């Protein structure tokens, strides 16, 4: 039976602009409808490719100075002598602003990383054949990553636990190779993403620790021994936290 899903609805779903219950219904639908899943996967990669459009054009410093001096506090330079009382006020205001700007930048970077991680997880949900290595045996999945990523990590024994190992693949987060291991918890799929915390240039992906909610997914992240772990999925926070705990146990 052909699917009659409204395309605008799928787009609104990716834009996080639909109500929670609609979102849940759509997620269920995506698991059973390969057409919509393929459509979502195409939309996700289109968005990822478009992201650099945000910094395609950069203004020159000269132009920035020009506008700044046009709108800026030229007058206070001219009337500086009479304005002594204003300096402490402006300085305090500036300090507050700088803190605000730095904080906004940080949270923007953080939210971009979250977005990438979420996109990767969604594209896994959406893909019919999402793994490069398909195995429920950690002794198969772990060695597969050797030589494909520039770091090593351990997987806990899933036998007898609530989790089932589904497989893994190599993905990229912030242009760095990362390991994505997918685990099932009941009917929910959970992605574990592991990436090196610092690149050659020494940048650290800034993220706060603990369980957070992002695009209705639960996410837990932590850093250990130079690696950054993300556990993301629509399973409940408890399950995410238990899986995170198991991973922390074997990567101590």
């Amino acid at each position, binding site marked *: 039976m052909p699917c009659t899903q409204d395309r605008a609805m799928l787009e609104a779903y990716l834009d996080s602009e639909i109500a929670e219950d609609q979102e849940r219904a759509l997620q269920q639908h995506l698991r059973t409808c390969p057409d919509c899943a393929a*459509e979502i996967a195409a939309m996700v990669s289109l968005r990822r490719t*478009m992201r650099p459009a945000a910094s395609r054009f950069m203004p020159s410093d000269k132009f920035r100075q020009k506008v700044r001096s046009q709108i800026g*506090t030229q007058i206070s330079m001219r009337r500086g002598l009479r304005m002594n009382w204003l300096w402490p006020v402006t300085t305090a*205001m500036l300090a507050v*602003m700088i803190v605000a700007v730095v904080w906004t930048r940080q949270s923007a970077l953080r939210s971009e990383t979250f977005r990438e991680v979420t996109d990767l997880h969604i594209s896994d949900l959406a893909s019919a054949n999402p793994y490069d290595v398909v195995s429920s045996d950690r002794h198969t999945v772990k060695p597969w990553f050797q030589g494909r990523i520039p770091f090593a990590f351990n997987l806990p024994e899933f036998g007898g636990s609530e989790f089932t190992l589904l497989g893994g693949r190599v993905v990229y987060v912030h242009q760095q190779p990362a390991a994505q291991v997918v685990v099932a918890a009941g009917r929910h799929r959970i992605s574990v993403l592991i990436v090196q915390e610092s690149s050659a240039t020494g940048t650290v992906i800034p993220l706060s620790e603990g369980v957070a909610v992002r695009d209705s997914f639960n996410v837990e992240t932590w850093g250990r021994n130079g690696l950054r772990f993300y556990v993301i999925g629509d399973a409940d926070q408890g399950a995410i936290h238990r899986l995170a705990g198991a991973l922390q146990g074997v990567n101590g």
Partner: protein
Amino acid sequence: MNSRWVAARKEEMNRAFFEQLAMPLFDQLYNHACWLTGHRADAEDLVQETYAKALKGFASFSEGTNLRAWMFRILRNTFLNSRSGLAAQMTDFLEDCEGSVEEAVSHEITPERILIRTENQEAIFAALESLPVPHREVILLCDVDEMSYREIAHVLDVPVGTVMSRLSRARASLRSALGAKLKEEVK
């Protein structure tokens, strides 16, 4: 302390406040202006005028409203009234039947899906540039500047429902532009 002196100080504070709030948006507004106009020189004029107008109107800007959407709206209106903006409006006939688009998901592996899969950035940028302004701007606001539908509605001065339908139509036309590009390459 006479009232003129007080007014001047107030104006001073206003400027300093505006500068601190509005300058962090500079790169984003400039990038958006370049995408809209297609020329760096036009974009510079546009951004400069936007900041001048915004400073003038800053007194009327009520705190708590979204400064970014407000600035983008000024930029957009300034662009539409500029020479290149008027030219764009003349050529870009946009039939915006403002209803909802009930376009079902296609079932075939369309050529543009293949192109998207390869994440061919150059082709996607070229396709985006080829879109009429109303389509280009709504995609930029949503996917590049990452605005919510509500913010976009404020920038474009249309209801949220229109944002949704216009976005959908714009993305469909982006993808058909990509498909056309792929066919050209194959030939």
